């Protein structure tokens, strides 16, 4: 292994003090027989500590391959519970795990794959208050989080701590991957210097994602983490890999460190963690408003109108005045008092089939159809619009108000909030 380059200071020394037992020699035989890895490399993997932020779509394949490969200590950060809607892509978790903490099912899965691995879990939402403490002491961080504030938080914490950030992100059929924060290379902020306006880029929950896609991208992240540990090959530092599963097109573009980067530049202005929710303009749940632009525009009909709605959301405006909104409890009260508003569900038909408020008088008008069905609505009547979590309906309400429906209101938190607060027996997704 004369060619190996120590990319993680001190790792090779830590590895030198380790031995591989008989079971490990058998388990890792196909690694050991490759001169590029060999016993020295396998001991480096055993000595390595890799932290995965998110035990979801990207974290699942990354953690499973890293564990199987013999990375000695895997850390997992997540605070979520397994949901049915996770199962088409998050292979750390099985059907029987629905409702359990993801960290519990992840730990079991990883230890079943490889009992030689030590799994450390952090059941918490990563925040500016805890991130430095959680990330400190890890050799490599694998970012598999699912939102922009956490992306910037992980990046900044990695730069401040000097930890390589193996980064991946997915959207529908497309993925991106790179390695940030290595000496001389760019960090996430060098490339994406500002977050998108709130709602301009939909989440996977809103826009959907091909279940296989995180398998592709998360596995690439695992490969990059292993190369960092082994000191082998050429990593994605300085390159952004773009994956298009629909075209099965893999291409890379050049990226470089920005000397004026506020975090890793020559004169950094961000020298401690900041408020990333505020940085990303997400003070509350309506921050996701706009994410439905893509969803609405998906339908064959009304594509222009859906895009126009999305454009309005992308302007960065909030959800509007307080009177634009209504809580699930306020809606329950209205219904109980016989003051039923026109209840409009702007989700997709498949979502309606999972759960709906039809018994309360709701009807389905998918967001993409809304502009073409305004004649079904009464300008003088109170209209309460809901979707899954409140983001598409926020867009719809903004649009309706622009079109003269001044009494349109958004059901805050959507049908998910209704299920949680009002009707615990309602199926969720």
């Amino acid at each position, binding site marked *: 292994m004369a060619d190996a380059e120590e990319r993680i200071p001190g790792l090779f020394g830590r590895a030198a003090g380790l031995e591989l037992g008989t079971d490990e020699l058998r388990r890792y035989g196909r690694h050991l027989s490759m001169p590029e890895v060999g016993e020295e490399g396998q001991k480096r993997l055993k000595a390595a500590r890799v932290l995965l932020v*998110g035990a*979801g*779509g*990207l*974290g699942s394949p990354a953690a499973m391959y890293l564990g199987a490969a013999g990375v000695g200590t895997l850390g997992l950060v997540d605070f979520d519970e397994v949901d049915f809607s996770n199962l088409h892509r998050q292979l750390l978790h099985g059907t029987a795990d629905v409702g359990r903490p993801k960290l519990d099912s992840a730990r079991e899965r990883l230890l079943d794959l490889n009992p030689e691995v030590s799994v450390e879990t952090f059941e918490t939402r990563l925040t500016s208050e805890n991130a430095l403490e959680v990330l400190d002491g890890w050799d490599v961080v694998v*970012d*598999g*989080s*699912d*939102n*922009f504030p*956490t*992306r910037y938080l992980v990046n900044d914490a990695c730069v401040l701590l000097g930890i390589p950030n193996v980064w*991946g*992100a*997915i*959207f*529908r*059929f*497309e993925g*991106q991957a790179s390695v940030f924060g290595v000496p001389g290379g760019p960090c996430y902020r060098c*490339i*994406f*210097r*500002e*977050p*998108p*306006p709130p709602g*301009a*880029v*939909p*989440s*996977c929950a809103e*826009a959907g*994602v091909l279940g296989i896609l*995180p398998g592709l991208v998360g596995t690439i992240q695992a490969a990059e983490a292993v190369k960092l540990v082994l000191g082998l090959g050429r990593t994605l530092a300085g390159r*952004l890999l*773009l994956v298009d599963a629909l075209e099965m097109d893999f*291409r*890379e*573009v*050049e*990226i*470089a460190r920005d000397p004026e980067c506020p975090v890793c530049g020559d004169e950094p202005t961000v020298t401690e963690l900041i408020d990333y929710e505020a940085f990303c303009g997400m003070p509350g749940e309506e921050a996701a408003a706009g994410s439905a*632009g*893509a969803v*609405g*525009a*998906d339908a064959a009909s009304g*594509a*222009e109108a*859906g*895009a*126009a709605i*999305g*454009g309005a959301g*992308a*302007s960065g405006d909030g959800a509007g005045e307080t009177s634009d909104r209504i809580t699930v409890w306020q809606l329950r009260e209205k219904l109980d008092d016989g003051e039923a508003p026109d209840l409009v569900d702007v989700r997709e038909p498949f979502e309606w089939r999972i759960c709906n408020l039809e018994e309360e008088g709701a009807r389905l008008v998918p967001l993409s159809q809304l502009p073409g069905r305004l004649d079904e609505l009464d300008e003088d009547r109170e209209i309460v619009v809901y979707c899954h979590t409140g983001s598409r309906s926020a867009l719809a309400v903004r649009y309706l108000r622009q079109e003269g429906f001044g009494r349109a209101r958004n059901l805050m938190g959507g049908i998910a909030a209704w299920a949680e607060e009002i009707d615990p027996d309602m199926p969720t997704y």
Partner: protein
Amino acid sequence: MEETAAAPRVTVKLPASLRPHAEGRQEARVEASSVGEALRRLAERHAALGTHLFDDAGRVRGHVNVFVGGRRVDDPASEALGEGDEVRLVPSIAGG
């Protein structure tokens, strides 16, 4: 900027997150002498796309990267284009 018949014909590649704002198109062909002009041409065709590409001051938004031939464009306004160039838009995505 005035468009001339001599302006190079280029292809702008649109990622999935921007396609809903461009009638679902994966790419668009425009005639433009610079990257900035190419993006403005796109925004003229698709107003919603313009909102996603440009901020209120008319600058390309900080979460949208532009690459020509695999090389990142720092200043779209001054980046000249040649006949047949491929302009690739790469906005940030966060799904995991």
